[in-house]
């Protein structure tokens, strides 16, 4: 392969070359080809089976951008975002409470987490909706007074049910994040005269975010799917709308596939967002940031082009 060596007749006029680059034949991974073929075959047969089934696939594109479906998608998104906001802020609050030296606040947080993690969300949702059995009125003195049933709209129920439950899970994630920050950081901040709350807000929480964000991304995706439970309290989010349309249009299964496709699209979008948020909070944690997928693709294309020439 290396003809260069024979060519070097005049050692005086050749530039001093470094060690020769290695050009070895890479190991062939035959197993990979075989498994890829099997996987494609299995996938193809599944697709075939579905295409032969008694499903009217044409109904899906017809309704994909239906106004009611889009409205449901919007409501699902809104529920996810708002419930997660309640969850994240509640979770940070609960985590700080649990780590507090005050035994009263830390036990309250412990009890909250114990209760909300220990009961199913679906049950919590239904209970919130039916709390009118306990409180007939909601009475905030001169500010507000109404029947429970008209105060507890499906939206409010959904937000409270999903958000408060999420806060309990987020609390544990946030607690792990806060504990992961070196104690020297708190100490340095206190030594500069910063108060407890400023130390938390400016020094500890931003560093804890690096640990908190990845599992939170997971929680967002979970939440997006969990919002479908809200269909039981008649809130017209994506699944509810899809089921309603399915009933009236005579294509119930098709509409479920449609909903599944929308959920898949939404979770994919969130995953991309998560990637960039993680990058943001990783700043300062390593000497150089890992390249984004786009940068990677660009680099790969360039290096391929380089090898081809």
């Amino acid at each position, binding site marked *: 392969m290396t003809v260069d060596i024979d060519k070097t007749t005049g050692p005086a006029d050749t530039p001093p070359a470094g060690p020769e680059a290695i050009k070895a034949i890479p190991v062939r991974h035959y197993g990979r080809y075989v498994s890829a073929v099997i996987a494609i075959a299995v996938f193809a047969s599944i697709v075939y089976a579905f295409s032969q089934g008694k499903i009217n696939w044409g109904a899906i594109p017809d309704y994909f951008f239906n106004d009611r479906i889009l409205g449901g998608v919007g409501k699902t998104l809104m529920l996810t975002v708002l419930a997660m906001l309640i969850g994240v802020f509640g979770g940070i609050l609960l985590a700080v409470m649990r780590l507090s030296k005050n035994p009263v606040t830390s036990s309250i947080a412990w009890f909250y987490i114990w209760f909300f993690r220990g009961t199913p969300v679906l049950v919590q949702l239904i209970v919130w909706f039916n709390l009118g059995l306990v409180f007939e009125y909601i009475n905030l003195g001169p500010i507000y007074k109404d029947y429970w049933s008209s105060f507890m709209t499906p939206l409010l129920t959904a937000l409270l049910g999903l958000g408060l439950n999420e806060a309990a899970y987020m609390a544990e994630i946030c607690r792990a994040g806060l504990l992961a920050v070196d104690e020297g950081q708190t100490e*340095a901040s206190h030594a500069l*005269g910063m*108060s407890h709350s400023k130390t938390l807000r400016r020094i500890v929480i931003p560093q804890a975010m690096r640990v908190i964000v990845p599992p939170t991304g997971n929680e967002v995706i979970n939440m997006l799917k969990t919002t479908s439970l809200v269909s039981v309290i008649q809130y017209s989010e994506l699944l509810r709308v899809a089921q309603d349309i399915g009933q009236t249009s005579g294509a119930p299964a098709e509409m479920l596939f449609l909903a599944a496709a929308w959920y898949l699209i939404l979770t994919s979008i969130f995953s991309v967002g998560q990637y960039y948020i993680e990058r943001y909070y990783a*700043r*300062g944690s390593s000497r150089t940031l890992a390249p984004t997928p786009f940068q990677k693709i660009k680099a790969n294309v360039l290096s391929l082009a380089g090898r081809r020439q």
Partner: protein
Amino acid sequence: MNTEKVEDKPSGSTAVSMVKSEGVHKSFGPVEVLKGIDLEVKSGEVFCLIGPSGSGKSTFLRCINHLEKINAGRLYVDGELVGYRQKGDKLYELKDSEVALKRRDIGMVFQRFNLFPHMTALENVMEAPIQVKGVSKAQARERAGQLLERVGLADKAGNYPSQLSGGQQQRVAIARALAMDPKLMLFDEPTSALDPELVGDVLDVMRDLAESGMTMVVVTHEMGFAREVGDSLVFMDGGVVVESGNPRDVLTNPQHERTQSFLSKVL
């Protein structure tokens, strides 16, 4: 020389003493770490604290800015009791906000730097003046730039701590402490986490600071620095002060047997 610190102090016997420790005791659970420390740091002096590992040097330093609570004795900084208020013969614990107020005036430099890793060097130095003193961003930025220049790091302002060497990080940490215009600086083995060739830069910055008249309490294993820059030196062992005096005298002619054996090991 910078003597503005002496101005607004109550006149009296404590006027020249920046730190005064009278019989300070500190225990962690059943373990007594400080067993009655008596010493005095005068305003404007460089006070070195040496001693074997575990003798309580760091603990004492941390007591001075109330990162640790003392169990007995009295500790004064600039004539005021640390962590408490005395009314008649009763002591009242200070609130967190009052303790924080006093810590503004005491800079601290740690063995492991403890820079804020999510902020650049410049932001590290700007943070406390903005958050604690309410200085405007523009002003803080200008001052931080000057301080970084003073420690020889003007060109590293935009670097994150992970992009700085240990010696550079420690100098940023010194600039960060100076940004609060402290009247007292505490150094806890500022060079012992550094590679030997980086120690010099940090010591140079500290020497500069000493020349500007800053009161400094320095826990160190750098006997050369103590001898050249130190005004007083204390040798601690087992939670007590064993020997104290002028650094040159103590280091070259230690009186106490424990001091002699410690110095023979480190020199």
